[in-house]
């Protein structure tokens, strides 16, 4: 078995490129880095600072995440993030269950974009087991991934507005609108897979559910509506003076910090690094498509919003390109049997990564060999949210509590994926 390792994290040699399509005229900012290892006892011998535990139960921590903030008035001096409140032992579970049993489990990792989880997992297994994927299935996977990206970014946009505006204020209005549009995508997924959320539609070597009759027309109408309404939402929020005051220059993650911490996805692109696995290490059918990558240079919350909104529009464009041209052919390269002999005896290792809405979602798997049944020996998830969250101790000091909530919202952490 040949070792097959797809593109790893950002290569350090890649320079901060000029924008392909400049979305802002602001200058690149530098992170005003806080010291994550600041000794509070030395900094504040009189113990005047207030310790505020933001979370684990808090309306804006997007799940169960705890931030220990040392506050001077409302100013954050030091921030210590704690994760692990949603730890479910998925990676350990992978050593017990067989390859085919793992796919539905991975739906629950990043519960906002389950398609990407399934895809990264089956891609790793396919690479490990040397299974071919027919073109039709690859095409369909690309389509599903882009639809999922729209849904995920829509949810993020609404949730971010809610972080800024509150559940009893203007934010919740945008939240409701975004959820309404996300429903359209979920409806389309439901018609294809029978599930709204935890699809289990990918299997090793292909897809399980074929495109039903009339599906393309429904996807068309859904993305038409989304594209149209997205303009309204942009006008609603992104040109609002209050919103700009709250986000411009807040939570700057510059390119150096992002690369140092292995941050990928929209946060990296907002910092000016032109990196997108869909274009740089094409998987599925992305080699047949031209993906336009949006970057920004400011690296703040506002830039991240711009990048994500541009990504929704780009995904809409890609879906529109693909939806009418799904190639004919088989949907899977083999029958959906429980476990075949090859899987039981497979050793070796493989890494596969997809560009999830939050960045590079990678699965590294080592085959278990004959004495493990048909389970991997070890499986490691490289979750983009965990890397994104690791910027908090550097970025938060110097901001106030309100900004902490905005920054936390703008890095878009999904706790199910952070803690696994």
């Amino acid at each position, binding site marked *: 078995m040949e070792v097959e390792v797809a593109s790893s994290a950002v290569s350090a040699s890649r320079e901060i490129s000029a924008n392909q399509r400049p979305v802002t005229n602001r200058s690149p900012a530098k992170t005003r880095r806080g010291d994550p290892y600041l000794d509070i006892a030395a900094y504040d011998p009189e113990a005047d600072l207030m310790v505020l535990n933001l979370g684990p139960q808090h309306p804006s921590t997007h799940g169960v995440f705890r931030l220990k903030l040392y506050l001077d008035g409302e100013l954050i001096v030091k921030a210590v993030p704690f994760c692990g409140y949603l730890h479910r032992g998925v990676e350990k579970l992978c050593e017990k269950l067989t390859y085919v049993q793992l796919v539905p489990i991975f739906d629950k990792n990043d519960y906002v974009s389950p398609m990407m989880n399934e895809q990264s997992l089956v891609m790793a297994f396919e690479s490990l087991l040397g299974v071919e994927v027919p073109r039709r299935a690859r095409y369909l996977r690309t389509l599903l991934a882009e639809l999922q990206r729209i849904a995920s970014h829509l949810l993020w946009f609404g949730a971010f507005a809610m972080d800024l505006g*509150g559940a*009893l204020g*203007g*934010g919740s*209005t945008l939240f409701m609108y975004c959820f309404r549009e996300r429903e359209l995508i979920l409806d389309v997924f439901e018609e294809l897979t029978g599930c709204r959320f935890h699809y289990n539609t990918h299997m090793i070597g292909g897809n399980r559910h074929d495109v039903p009759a009339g599906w393309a027309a429904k996807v068309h109408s859904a993305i038409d509506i989304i594209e149209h309404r997205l303009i309204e939402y942009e006008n609603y929020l992104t040109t609002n003076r209050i*919103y700009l*005051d*709250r986000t411009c220059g807040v939570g700057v993650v510059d390119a150096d910090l992002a690369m140092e911490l292995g941050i990928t996805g929209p946060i990296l692109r907002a910092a000016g690094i032109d990196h997108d696995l869909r274009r740089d290490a094409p998987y599925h059918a992305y080699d047949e498509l031209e993906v336009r990558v949006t970057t920004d240079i400011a690296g703040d919350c506002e830039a991240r919003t711009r990048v994500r909104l541009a990504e929704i529009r780009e995904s809409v464009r890609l879906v529109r390109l693909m939806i009418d041209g799904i190639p004919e052919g088989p949907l899977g390269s083999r029958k959906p049997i429980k476990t075949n002999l090859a899987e039981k005896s497979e050793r070796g290792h493989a890494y596969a990564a997809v560009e999830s809405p939050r960045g590079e979602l990678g699965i590294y798997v080592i085959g278990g060999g004959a004495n493990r049944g048909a389970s991997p020996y070890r499986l490691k998830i490289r979750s983009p949210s965990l890397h994104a969250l690791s910027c908090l101790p550097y970025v938060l000091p110097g901001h106030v509590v*309100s900004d902490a909530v905005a920054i936390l919202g703008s890095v878009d952490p999904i706790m199910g994926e952070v803690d696994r």
Partner: protein
Amino acid sequence: MSPYLRALIYSLVIITLLLTVTAWSIWFERKFSGRMQSRVGPTFYGPFGLLQPVVDGLKLLQKEFLIPESADRALFVLAPPLTVILALGTAAVVPFGSEVVAADLDVGVLYILALGSLTTVPVWIAGWASNNKYSLLGGMRAVAQGISYEIPLALAALVPVILAGSMSLTDIVNYQIQHGWFVFWPPGPGFLAFLFFLPASLAEANRIPFDIPEAESELIAGVTTEYTGMGFGLLYLAEYLHTLIVSAVASALFFGGWDGPLLPGLHWMVAKTLVLFAGIFAIRWSLVRFRSDQLMGICWRYLVPIGLGLVMVSAIWVQLAKASAQ
């Protein structure tokens, strides 16, 4: 009829009216925000969910009023009723018709401003007594905001006072009936002062669009975090009550109060108040929040200097009007 008896009857009527309107304004807001957010809002109790406020009240009454072990018990219990009392107290001088006013004070506007600045106190009490860090932060923000926004509020309220030459709200309304509403005439200062007054009074009392002290996305529920049952209910009642009364004061100061054709004065006053009230809700459900320091910046950098200018302009206007009359 003795003036004391009259004041008692009128205040009872006005309080009942206000509380009723407030209760149903919550229903109205829930329906309104529901329609804004492509939802339906309350539908279960009564036609169009009209009995929702009753059910809400019953639910709150049934809940236990928990006092945290480390809280300052006396202050913790004191804060919610105090907010309601102060909010209702403001209503005493608001004229709902040419005769429908509980107490027509000569210093009505001053009284409103004084009670308005006092509303900061129970909010701070609630924040302090809860012995919760989120409440404390909320209380701190409330005090900072309340003290800052008193100044533009007073300046905005000074404009109609200068123009009408009286601090009594009834006199101000009567002046407007004769000379036209301040929001239209004199052109400029009246309208600008109204644009200041409404947000400043809401911000001063930490009410809805400027409810940074209870920003639930940051401070969970700010000062109300530790309150349950009717304590929470009273804090929220006071919030809505205050919003309603601010709308009423604004319509008396700038929109000619009970002035209007055909219908009786009370109808006009209530209609104007509710329109302003709905406007506040529309703002609330469409804007995101300021950061607390940005809100302060707006106050000190823009509102206070412009407010001073407005007061000056209206004083000059009054002098010019006097000179031209002679």
